[in-house]
């Protein structure tokens, strides 16, 4: 029967305190934790090392790709020198000038190739000389690439 007074839990409190107050981790808890942390630390280090290696390899590959592309571009730019442009102009000029005599020869309107060459010698030989002179520096650079860098 309820009396309206709060129940006295003193005995119960004592028994519960006796049951739970002494509960604690086992004595080797810290040692086991330290060992686990050491293992995790080693694993972490190995993972970080692996990640750093992968990142470095990726950087290296990317740098090589980038450098390769740049080198190609620079090599292409090096071809466009004053000499090669001059040689190209001469080739274009000679091709334009000689197109009609060679067409005539191909159509059988001119007797022979030697005649065509002889008749246009004033154009052909200076052009050839100009082309060779224009390409000489480029050919020399290709044979000695270290001079071009």
């Amino acid at each position, binding site marked *: 029967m309820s009396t309206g007074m709060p129940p006295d839990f003193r005995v119960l409190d004592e028994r519960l305190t006796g*049951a739970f107050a002494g509960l604690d981790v086992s004595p080797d808890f810290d040692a086991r934790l330290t060992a686990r942390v050491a293992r995790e630390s080693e694993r972490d280090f190995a993972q970080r090392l692996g990640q750093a290696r992968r990142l470095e390899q990726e950087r290296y590959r990317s740098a090589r790709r980038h450098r390769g592309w740049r080198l190609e571009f620079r090599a292409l730019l090096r071809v466009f020198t004053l000499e090669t442009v001059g040689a190209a102009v001469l080739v274009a000029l000679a091709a334009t000038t000689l197109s009609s005599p060679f067409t005539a020869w191909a159509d059988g309107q001119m007797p022979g190739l030697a005649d065509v060459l002889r008749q246009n010698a004033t154009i052909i030989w200076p052009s050839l000389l100009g082309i060779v002179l224009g390409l000489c520096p480029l050919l020399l650079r290709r044979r000695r690439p270290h001079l071009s860098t």
Partner: protein
Amino acid sequence: MLTDDGVMALARSGRRDEALAAVVRQLRRKVFGLAYSYLGNRDAAEDVAQDVFIKLWRALPDYDGRAALSTWVYAITRNASLSALRARRSAASLSDPEVSAEVDSASAVAPDESGPEAEAVRRLVEQLPLKQRQVVTLFYMQEQSHEEVAAMLAMPVGTVKTLLHRARARLSEAV
């Protein structure tokens, strides 16, 4: 005793192990008690406590001090304990009913050196609903502080008092 800022400073300066050691010193028993209040088993609670501190060790460099360290640790412990509880239940449900009954009885209260009377009392507490069981366990483990128990279980102090009163009433009948 190291403050939360002190722990944060240690962790950020690369002295994570020292920071963890300081936290373990301060919260070891509370973390173990909280896990025990869920699992009711000493070994399982120790395993959870170990997992909690390992998780904490991993996460310490990210601790920004916005919440109290203890609040953070208690949240990790509650989640880890619930996971362990779920894992234990699912493992028991997969096995033979007789085996699972045996697991339940074995895990309910682990005998220890505190004697048969303490064990009997703990068995009685095991019969209480989870929330009441947790409040009773933590209250008598943690020097009878309602505030501390409320912080550990993330519930209002008033709720802790109510749950404790109900649990005591039930237990006093049984005792």
